């Protein structure tokens, strides 16, 4: 059954994947710069990570090399750990300031 699967790169060029990943990464950057809600900023960072993951998988399949996909696996693991700690920090900030607006986080000490 696997033998009849089409090689996607005979239909979609690798350039399309590069452009798509660049656009998705830029949307993530836009979210980080545009919003004041710290949770939305976290979500935008996740979007950037996913854009990079997509490009890694595309090149891994393109070059017939499994290392890229293993690396994506590690990126997902690190992203999960980062989100757990980051949201814990946000909960602590919210408990102290009653807001997670990043423009109010100007002081290192209060």
């Amino acid at each position, binding site marked *: 059954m696997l033998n009849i699967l089409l090689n*996607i790169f005979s239909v979609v060029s690798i350039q399309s994947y590069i452009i798509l990943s*660049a656009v998705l990464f830029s949307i993530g950057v836009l979210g980080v710069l545009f919003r004041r809600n710290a*949770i939305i900023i976290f979500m935008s960072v996740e979007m950037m990570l996913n854009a990079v993951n997509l490009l890694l998988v595309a090149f891994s399949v393109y070059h017939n090399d499994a290392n890229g996909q293993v690396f994506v696996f590690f990126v997902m693991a690190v992203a999960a*750990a980062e989100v*757990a700690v980051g949201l814990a920090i946000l*909960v602590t900030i919210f408990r102290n300031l009653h807001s997670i607006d990043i423009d109010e986080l100007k002081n290192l000490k209060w």
Partner: protein
Amino acid sequence: MELYIFYLLAALGIFSGFMTVFSRNPVHSILYLVIFFFAITGHYLLLNAQFLAMVNLIVYVGAIMVLFLSTIMLMNLNQETEQHKPALARIGAVVASGLLMLVLIAIFKRADNMPLPPDTNPMLSTVKNLGSVLLNQYLFPFEFSSVLFLSSMIGAVLLSKKEKVEAR
């Protein structure tokens, strides 16, 4: 056929990404982000990477999004109370990210179109193949990621524990 699926998934991903950034209500943002992750999963399936597609679905949609959603509910932020940044900062953000996108595309457009490798291996992305690479070549980083998870778990518990107020 595959080309249309690619463009459909790409359009879905870009649309839901924009809606994630521009939704006023944080809960709507999270739901659009779930659609974004589904689009990425579709791309993985299109690239014949079944294992990563399932891992992406379980880790991101199943775990991380639930974590985000429960945090939003915990903070009671499901109203549209957020104030916008000043107009200058918003215009600056749009211009900066647009320029970044232009520069990235312009750089990668100049890359030479590489020829297709002669033999494409349909068994590349199977769990068997990836598992053997992961547990032979990358055994040490794999075990080390358990230390990362342990430390992040301890950190999350420590941070979200309520501090006792000490009388001075």
